[in-house]
């Protein structure tokens, strides 16, 4: 039986590292496996590198990196269902907590603030980040992932702005949270969404319609935030007259 020299073993290790196998355990496994095949199949007169190249080609369809990717996918897939369950549970809890908070607020019962903060916390820091993590796996291009990320950020900013208004936080009186959300939507999210969708013929019309709706919605939101201080001033003036 042919015995590989230390230099040949090192050569194989370096080669599989260069071909994209970064997980150390996987490197060791593949190295041993390749060595086993070579030691069984190679003959004394054979050229080592030629036989090695032929043997390595059996390991993949397109490139060796596939094994690394498949391993990583299987390892992360383990957490996939757990993350999905947490996301669904956090979504349901958010909806329930929001409803409880709203009932308490309308009925002037104690605990409304607690429920609102809890609901916003669940939505912004658990549901939406998990939604991003799970959905981005389905997206192929970086641009699509950026659209999703900015959309999630808009969602988080929106919920924080609502909370700030309901809770009468100091910064909320000047509409800072709203303006931050609207500004981010106008200058980052909507342009990213529009230019990503308009390039694809199948989503062109849908992109234009959704972009128009988003611009209208954000404009109305901006109008409400901008008019709010004037309304407040008028109420104060009326109260002063009385």
């Amino acid at each position, binding site marked *: 039986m042919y015995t590989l020299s*230390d230099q040949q*073993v*090192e050569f194989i*290790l370096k080669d599989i590292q260069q071909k994209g196998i970064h*997980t150390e*355990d*996987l490197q*060791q*496994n*593949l*190295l*041993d*496996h390749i*060595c*086993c*095949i070579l030691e069984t199949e190679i003959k004394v007169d054979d050229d080592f590198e030629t036989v090695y190249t032929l043997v390595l080609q*059996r*390991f*993949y*369809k397109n490139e060796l990196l*596939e*094994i690394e990717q*498949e*391993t990583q*996918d*299987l*390892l992360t*897939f*383990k957490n996939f269902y757990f993350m999905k369950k947490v996301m669904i549970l956090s979504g349901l809890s958010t909806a329930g907590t929001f409803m409880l908070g709203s009932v308490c607020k309308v009925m002037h019962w104690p605990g409304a603030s607690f429920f609102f903060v809890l609901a916003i916390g669940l939505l912004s820091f658990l549901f939406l980040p998990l939604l991003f993590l799970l959905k981005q796996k389905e997206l192929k291009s970086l641009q699509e992932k950026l659209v999703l990320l900015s959309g999630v950020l808009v969602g988080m900013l929106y919920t924080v702005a609502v909370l700030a208004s309901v809770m009468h936080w100091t910064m909320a009186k000047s509409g800072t949270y709203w303006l931050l959300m609207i500004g981010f939507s106008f200058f980052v999210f909507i342009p990213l969404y529009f230019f990503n969708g308009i390039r694809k013929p199948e989503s062109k019309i849908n992109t234009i319609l959704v972009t128009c709706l988003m611009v209208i919605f954000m404009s109305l939101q901006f109008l409400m935030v901008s008019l709010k201080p004037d309304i407040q001033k008028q109420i104060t003036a009326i109260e002063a007259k009385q």
Partner: protein
Amino acid sequence: MLFSSELIKGTLKTIVLKLLADNKRMYGYEITQKVKELTRDRILITEGALYPTLHALEADGLVVTELEYIGKRVRKHYKLTPTGKSKTKEKVSELIEFMQTMHVLLDINLQTS
């Protein structure tokens, strides 16, 4: 006849677990050779499918590894954990039930076609 990789993919975990249950400890190359030998070359496990599966089984705590140093390289022997042993029984029973169900299902299909 060589079975397609699609058919093998769904049963690979069970095959590996059962082989480890029957052979105490095995390394990657040994597993592929054993499958080849037992099935008379009808099932060929590819390295691209075997190692991701072995790593996933290790991450799930179903197998543990023992290292053997051979010159400049390290050989990883896989063996079942107590959880892996009970999981093997579960997976084998599940596969047997599945095969029985498929048998019935395909017989029905054959009769109707």
